């Protein structure tokens, strides 16, 4: 089974702090994603990466940066946390090649980090 782990389930930070959210997957997946999930707004893509050291902006990258130094690890960084970044953050990974049972687009999610910025 694919396993995606996130460094914290709950995090409370103060405004202006630098925040690191880490995600690790154990299935050698090429693609990794960071989303935030807010009531009424659904899942919104922040950044994604399709290879080590490669990154692409998603729909809402402002206020965030990412790092992917190793294939299995994808970090989301809030340079200066603000209250409007209070949210549930979800990491996901996928393997780009489809097989008999897959289309190659299936994403496997971590349990999420609920971040509160006060």
């Amino acid at each position: 089974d694919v396993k995606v782990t996130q460094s914290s389930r709950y995090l409370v930070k103060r405004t202006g702090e630098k925040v690191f959210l880490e995600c690790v997957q154990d299935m050698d997946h090429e693609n990794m994603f960071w989303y935030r999930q807010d009531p009424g707004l659904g899942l919104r893509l922040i950044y994604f990466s399709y290879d080590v050291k490669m990154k692409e902006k998603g729909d809402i990258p402002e206020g965030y940066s990412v790092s992917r130094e190793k294939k299995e690890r994808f970090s989301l960084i809030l340079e200066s946390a603000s209250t409007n970044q209070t949210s549930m953050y979800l990491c996901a990974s996928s393997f780009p090649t489809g097989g008999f049972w897959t289309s190659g687009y299936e994403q496997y999610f971590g349990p999420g980090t609920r971040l509160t910025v006060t």
Partner: protein
Amino acid sequence: TQLLEQSPQFLSIQEGENLTVYCNSSSVFSSLQWYRQEPGEGPVLLVTVVTGGEVKKLKRLTFQFGDARKDSSLHITAAQPGDTGLYLCAGANLKAAGNKLTFGGGTRVLVKP
């Protein structure tokens, strides 16, 4: 920009009843996934549909991909409290870099015992 609209947004039913969740778009997708998310957890993949008109069954859940690959439905027969959760559809586009998905807004299902 591709959009996926899910309906209804919220569904509350009694145990044993049937329900259907819809996922619609004006765009064509190469495949479509359905996920279920329980409170405080990440979404979990339920199924992928790839071929227009395809129907897949997973125990009491039936998934259908529209003939034109623009829409999909999830039907649950004899719902149980364990089916409670947020159901998300997500569409894939072969042209999208990094195998990105377009997610629908979700349907929150509550099955009361």
